[in-house]
């Protein structure tokens, strides 16, 4: 198709502001799906996405409207997937910015709007849910216009639920969003903005063709990774897969690669022809690095191979997930996993538990640290247990957080951010009622319980988003927990010196409550290096005798003893001390530094 008849766009919205419903209406209105095929939220495929209302993987759907080819590129809705969002946006010339008429602008909307502006996208402001009784479309339009520097009169007002105003939105896409402007005759270049894995056909790349033409059976090259493969099939989604002989400049579609390993085809890479390669890749490729790490251990050690298989399977669809085997003397065999952020971690954990039926013990998450040892070696530490004893300097990742709250909660938010070593940058009023606060915070302070605290201190009104802005030196210490003199690797933490005492005390108190009394005294200590900063003793039991045996009923007594032994097998052994799994869980769930 001629490029001037093509429009590529995304929908940017906060969770629950109606993105998926709007996408459904668009598919219906353009007859892409018949009423019979229509099921709600066609684009969200995974069970988990449906339940959480989160779209994990971007997809693209081609629809026809008034002689034009419109490609709707779906974007993931959360901060952890910022890189994927930015790739998706790069595949577009414009984006609808959808805001709930009752909720107004949220932090994520702001963050993604800025992302869109950075990508030079034409923004189409839309106020959704105008049919709701509590809707305030005028105020939402005002906020939205203020955010992108437009006129409130240009803001479209719709109800995706009823379909009101959706046709006008499609007209506006054609009128206001520019057509693509690649070079149709140049050597082909396409941006990979997403990929997924199909058991039978291998890696499927979602691409936006920028220049030239791609043909089925052509031999292709992924320029950054250097991966070569043959395009087994080209096509597009409408909304299911439709094969096509070519994909031309300006179009969006898929390439079936036959590759069996997702890591060989990274999002952000540029595809070109192997025979007639482009001289330069498209700009902007970067390798996304996990920032949050946690140990995942099966509660039943027999499930270790099942966990390994499950991680392998997840990794096929999730190139950002990192995992490597980890052995903990307390928790046994497991994996240290790297995630883009907390939500990513939660999703992986839930998928492992739900789709693979695994019972997991997850250690407290930590961030990546850059360490300079006293001998001058530089290394990145993903696991507190690996922190060297002698360090010259430790750097931790910092984020720039934007928090949007009604003005009456500014105080509590500032208090929380300060407790978490936040540095205030500035504050702006989005409207008379709502302020956006910008803070710089150590990521480590955010991964533990920050979001829950933020929600509870603002009665759920705060919205929060962040970007990692780099590594900075911190006054960080490694806190070890020792049970009967044995360090428990799974409970080691790296934290700011100022919160070490409080945290050490809380850990020790909790363990004393949770570890049952043993046949001997058990000291529980928290220590920084060789210095003990908190200590409690679990006093030895004074009696432990089985019931009487009466009238020769020895079997009953033996069964009691067998039960006692079976109970022991469920314990984790730390030296000579038996620690119930629940004790680890209780400690790992311990609230943040507060």
């Amino acid at each position: 198709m001629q490029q001037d008849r093509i429009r590529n766009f995304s929908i940017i919205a906060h969770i629950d502001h109606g993105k998926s419903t709007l996408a459904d209406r668009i598919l219906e209105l353009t007859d892409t799906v018949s009423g019979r095929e229509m099921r709600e939220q066609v684009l969200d495929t995974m069970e988990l996405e449906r339940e959480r209302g989160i779209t994990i993987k971007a997809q693209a759907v081609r629809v026809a409207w008034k002689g034009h080819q419109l490609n709707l590129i779906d974007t993931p809705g959360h901060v952890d997937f910022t890189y994927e969002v930015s790739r998706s946006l790069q595949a577009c010339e414009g984006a609808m910015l959808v805001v709930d008429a009752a909720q107004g602008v949220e932090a994520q909307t702001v963050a993604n709007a800025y992302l869109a502006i950075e990508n030079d996208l034409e923004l189409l402001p839309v106020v959704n849910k105008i049919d709701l009784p509590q809707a305030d479309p005028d105020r939402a339009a005002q906020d939205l216009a203020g955010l992108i520097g437009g006129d409130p009169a240009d803001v479209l007002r719709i109800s995706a639920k009823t379909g009101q105003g959706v046709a006008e939105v499609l007209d506006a896409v054609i009128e206001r969003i520019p057509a693509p402007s690649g070079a149709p005759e140049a050597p082909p270049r396409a941006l990979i903005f997403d990929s997924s894995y199909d058991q039978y056909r291998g890696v499927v790349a979602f691409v936006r063709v920028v220049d030239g033409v791609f043909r089925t059976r052509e031999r292709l090259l992924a320029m950054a990774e250097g991966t070569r493969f043959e395009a087994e099939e080209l096509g597009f989604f409408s909304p299911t897969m439709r094969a096509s002989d070519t994909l031309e400049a300006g179009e969006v579609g898929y390439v079936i690669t036959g590759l069996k390993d997702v890591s060989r085809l990274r999002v952000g890479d540029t595809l070109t022809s192997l025979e007639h390669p482009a001289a330069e890749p498209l700009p902007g490729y970067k390798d996304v690095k996990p920032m949050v790490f946690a140990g995942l251990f099966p509660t039943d050690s027999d499930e270790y191979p099942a966990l390994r298989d499950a991680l392998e399977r997840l990794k096929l669809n999730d190139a950002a997930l990192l995992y490597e085997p980890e052995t903990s003397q307390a928790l046994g065999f497991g994996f240290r996993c790297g995630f883009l952020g907390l939500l990513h971690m939660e999703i992986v954990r839930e998928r492992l538990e739900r789709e693979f039926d695994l019972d997991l013990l997850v250690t407290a998450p930590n961030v990546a640290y850059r360490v300079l040892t006293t001998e001058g070696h530089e290394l990145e530490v993903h696991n507190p247990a690996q922190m060297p004893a002698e360090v010259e300097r430790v750097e931790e990742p910092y984020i720039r957080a934007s928090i949007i709250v009604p003005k009456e909660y500014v105080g509590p938010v500032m208090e929380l951010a300060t407790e978490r070593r936040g540095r205030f940058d500035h504050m702006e009023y989005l409207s008379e009622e709502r302020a956006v606060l910008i803070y710089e915070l150590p990521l480590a302070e955010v991964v533990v319980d920050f979001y829950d605290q933020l929600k509870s201190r603002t009665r759920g009104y705060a919205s929060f988003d962040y970007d990692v802005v780099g590594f900075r030196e911190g006054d960080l210490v490694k806190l070890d927990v020792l049970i009967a003199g044995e360090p428990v690797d799974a409970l080691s933490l790296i934290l700011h010196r100022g919160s070490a005492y409080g945290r050490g005390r809380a850990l020790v108190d909790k363990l004393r409550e949770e570890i049952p009394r043993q046949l001997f005294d058990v000291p529980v200590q928290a220590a920084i290096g060789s210095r003990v900063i908190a200590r409690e003793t679990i006093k030895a039991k004074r009696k432990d005798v089985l019931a009487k045996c009466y009238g020769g009923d020895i079997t009953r007594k033996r069964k009691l003893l067998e039960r006692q032994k079976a109970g022991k097998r469920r314990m984790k052994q730390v030296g000579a001390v038996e620690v119930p799994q629940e004790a680890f869980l209780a400690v790992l769930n311990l609230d943040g530094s507060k």
Partner: protein
Amino acid sequence: MSGVVRHLYVHLPFCGHRCGYCDFVTVVGRRGEHARYVAALLAELELERAALAPHLETVFLGGGTPTFTEPEALRRVLRRVPAAEEVTVEANPETVTPRLAVLLREEGVTRVSLGAQSFQPELLGVLERYAQPDDVRRAFYDLRDAGFDNISLDLIYGIPGQSPSAVAADIDEALALRPEHLSCYELEAKPGTRFTHAHGEELARQAEAMETYFEEVVDRLTTAGYRWYETANFCRAAEADGGRDLRSRHNLAYWLGRDYLGIGIGAVSTVAGRRWRNTPRLPAYLEALERGSPPAREVEELGADVRRRERVMLGLRLDEPLPLEPTDGVVDRGALRRLEGLGLVAYPTGEDRVEALALTRRGRLLGGGVTAELLA
């Protein structure tokens, strides 16, 4: 042809009422059925008699409350069971009269185990015991007057509302009677029972204090010259009693892994690697034996490994060292060394030639945990 089993247990399940904490196989009242039950019991004895040796070491009549059984029915049982060197009958204080004491004596009973439980009226009330402290003393002296020179008292500690000083007082009251033997058990409040429902909160409140009760019982009795020969059992030391060994020989048979035959409802037998438990249901028991058949039984074959484990589990309750050789393979040698380091286990010979194993005093107080640890 006669067998080799030298220990016989006879279950007499009848009671005047059921005490709140009790979870034994008991039948309340039913005076009219005592004779019928005894007839069935003796029929079962005849069916199994071939297993018994010509001379028994011990016979034990347990319950229920054996002394609640109609005197003539009880007399029939005592006359029909084979003679034995030790014949014990369990008794409740309120059922003991001078006449009954004489009857027991006449019918060859050598030892009486009297269920005192406590000497505090309010604690007896909590246990739903009818006897008062004076009834216990009176019963004790009735037995003495009838010529019994081997009387055991049962005490329960850890009763809801029982303070540490009340435990000491109970022991002192019991010692004042100079019994040959004492059995002291901690109250077991089984979850879901009426008793636990009524007293669970009180028990939870005193749980910490109760940790010390067992030690208190052991200290007081050993100081008074009693031998702590089994986890919950004490007897006057032989040297203090003219050389008599006053341990319960019948219960020792269980703890030493000997074979025994049990008759009556719910009774357990272990003979030649096979254990069975009679039905606890009275009507089913009566009907079967009246037809001339053995009662319904739950049978368990005991493998060699299980028998060795039981040997350790029971043997470690005793104060005499357990020979280790016959228990090979079931004791975890690593645990043995660890527990020795903690001062819980002592074994007399060198590291590699462990022949016998005993628990230290503290090891015995923690016997359950230590045993679980030792059994690999």
